[in-house]
């Protein structure tokens, strides 16, 4: 019941280019180190994490109330609120606003929710094109790829790749890999889209219940550039983006970028409270499985996530397998605990794409017990039957052997003798261990044999 291309297979392909894998690993490790430096400069770091965690726990426990508060206050500010129970409804709502207004020029800043809902693909099928304005997102959009990282969407690409892509789509000089030259080309290209935009779609980092306003964080200012000229601003948010009070931003804005890139704060943390005169502002609040996740006692606190991607950058598996190997909008360790909720069958491989080393939980700014949830998802997936028959038989057999000490001793002895006398039984292509690793040498006696001799 594995996917056609599950994480392990896709990762194996990624690793075939070893120098590139090293580069990917080192680039993200560098980001992790910047996070460490930023965190270590704040004596109150662990306290901030605890506060972030508690505020989110509290909010999740009172989510209905805060969502209603938010709606009331936002509406009082003149913002239109839409509720979407799933991705389809989210896409329909946006599509309707576009067709009602006959919009053709649409820009969108980064929103992982719209990736999760596959908004771009949905609109393309209706003949509507959206221009992604985050530089990394624009690059992957040109290449018809998905973002491979929620903060650094094009981190799987080198400047040479960007140069080729821009040569093809923006007519830049072939072979000119100068980052400044390439960025300037993107600037000029995007500027036209900003000026002409009729509709600007943004994500939401934090929606403040007490004010009815919301905050969008970018480093490029592209969200602001987009909404400044557009007639309508639509902000899309997962319903877990709520925080109770504006003062809580003092916790989350400090945690977010330090965890993400090691910056003290995003270059632009833009507060939107009401539409400017003549503009319409809409917010689409999306469930898409979040209520279901909230009802899973073991997994509900995954909804605390503020999408900083610190768990991506620290994950030794992510760094060596690339975001696309996770085949979901949100990759990395957090994606592996969120995605099975969206589709257990399609994402049954993801909780196994981890060594359970625990580094993800340690860097998480809101203290999600990510690696423990990975372990728990494994139990759920096996109980629900999303596991291959071979694995089931193998594990059942092992469990039986370990429950019966005499059988264990007998098989242990046979196993050791097999390796010793018939090494080709294990040293062959069918044994994945042996592909790139030698087998341990088989000793002539077990510890138990030795111990019993001592006692005589």
């Amino acid at each position: 019941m594995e996917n056609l291309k599950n994480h392990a297979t896709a990762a194996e392909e990624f690793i075939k280019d070893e120098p590139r894998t090293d580069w990917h690993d080192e680039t993200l490790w560098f980001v992790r180190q910047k996070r460490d430096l930023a965190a270590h400069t704040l004596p109150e770091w662990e306290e901030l994490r605890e506060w972030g965690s508690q505020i989110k726990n509290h909010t999740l426990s009172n989510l209905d109330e805060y969502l209603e508060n938010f709606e009331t206050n936002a509406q009082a500010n003149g913002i239109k609120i839409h509720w979407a129970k799933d991705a389809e409804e989210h896409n329909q709502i946006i599509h309707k606003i576009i067709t009602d207004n006959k919009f053709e020029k649409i820009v969108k800043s980064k929103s992982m929710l719209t990736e999760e809902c596959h908004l771009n693909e949905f609109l393309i099928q209706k003949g509507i094109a959206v221009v992604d304005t985050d530089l990394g997102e624009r690059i992957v959009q040109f290449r018809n790829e998905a973002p491979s990282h929620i903060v650094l969407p094009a981190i799987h690409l080198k400047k040479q790749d960007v140069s080729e892509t821009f040569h093809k789509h923006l007519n830049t000089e072939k072979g000119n890999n100068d980052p400044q030259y390439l960025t300037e080309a993107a600037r000029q290209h995007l500027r036209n889209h900003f000026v002409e935009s009729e509709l600007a779609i943004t994500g939401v980092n934090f929606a403040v219940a007490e004010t009815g306003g919301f905050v969008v964080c970018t480093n490029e200012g592209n969200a602001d550039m987009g909404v400044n000229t557009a007639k309508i601003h639509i902000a899309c948010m997962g319903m877990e983006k709520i925080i109770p009070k504006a003062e809580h931003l003092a916790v989350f804005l400090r945690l977010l970028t330090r965890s993400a890139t090691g910056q003290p704060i995003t270059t632009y943390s833009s507060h939107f409270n009401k539409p400017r005169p003549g503009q319409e502002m809409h917010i689409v609040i999306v469930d898409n499985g979040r209520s279901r996740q909230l009802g899973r006692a073991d997994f509900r606190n995954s909804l605390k996530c503020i999408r900083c991607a610190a768990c991506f950058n620290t994950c030794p598996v992510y760094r060596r397998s690339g975001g696309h190997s996770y085949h979901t909008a949100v990759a990395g360790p957090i994606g592996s605990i969120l995605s099975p909720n969206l589709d257990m069958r399609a994402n049954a491989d993801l909780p196994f794409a981890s060594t359970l080393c625990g580094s993800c939980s340690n860097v998480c700014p809101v203290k999600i017990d990510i690696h423990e949830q990975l372990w728990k998802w494994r139990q759920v997936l096996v109980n629900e039957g999303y596991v291959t028959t071979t694995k089931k038989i193998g594990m059942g057999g092992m469990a039986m052997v370990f429950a019966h000490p005499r059988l264990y001793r007998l098989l242990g002895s046979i196993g050791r003798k097999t390796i010793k006398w018939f090494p080709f039984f294990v040293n062959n292509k069918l044994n994945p261990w042996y592909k790139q690793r030698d087998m341990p040498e088989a000793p002539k006696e077990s510890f138990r044999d030795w111990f019993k001799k001592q006692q005589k």
Partner: protein
Amino acid sequence: MKVALFVPCYIDQFYPNVGIATYQLLKKLGCDVAFPLNQTCCGQPMANSGFSATTTGCDKNFVENFKGFDYIVAPSGSCVLHIKDHLKDEQNPEEAKKIRNSIYELTEFLVDILKVTNLESTFPHRVGMHISCHGQRGLHLSSMTETMDKPFSKPEQLLMQVKGLQLLTPERPDECCGFGGTFCVFEEAVSVKMGKDRVKEHEANDVEYITAGDVSCLMHLEGILKRQNSRVKTIHIAEILNHTV
């Protein structure tokens, strides 16, 4: 002090020397060491693969073997963590609970319970320290680079007492080696790549040995080192601490 020695299944079968070193070391330090003969496995390989529902028999056998001891000690952070977090026995819930609270990883036992400060061991070699994730992040045997703890390390505290030993830290001091239980075969490519990267950092330090508190990490790294015909060898920390000239 009545101490039960738990020698995890794969150590029993493939690395008996690690069990022997642990046994001898504990005896040397004055412990009354028992080895319950019907012990098998902690159940981790099944549970970490999602099959914790199948470990009832294995758990029961563990409780049967290890009930009634003051302490249980094992040369493996990973197996100890599994017992601490997951051992249960519906017929014997009190015994299971007692075991969960009295099982120790070897270096933790030496530092916290025996309070060893003066080991009589010698190992005149350049040794690279591999920190095993479950011992570190699970059992907190040492501080972690991600968190803001003051630096400390129980295994290193012991290795510093070994005469002649030169301890070397790899560039990324606490990155996972990629073993990860069944991960090592189901995610073979990533697993091996992670191991190769660990090995590379230790080789850059020109070490003669890589040591760790977990044989599973070492078995994985050893497999890679041997395949690469490296000069570097692996050795469990118990073998070093028990080593005399």
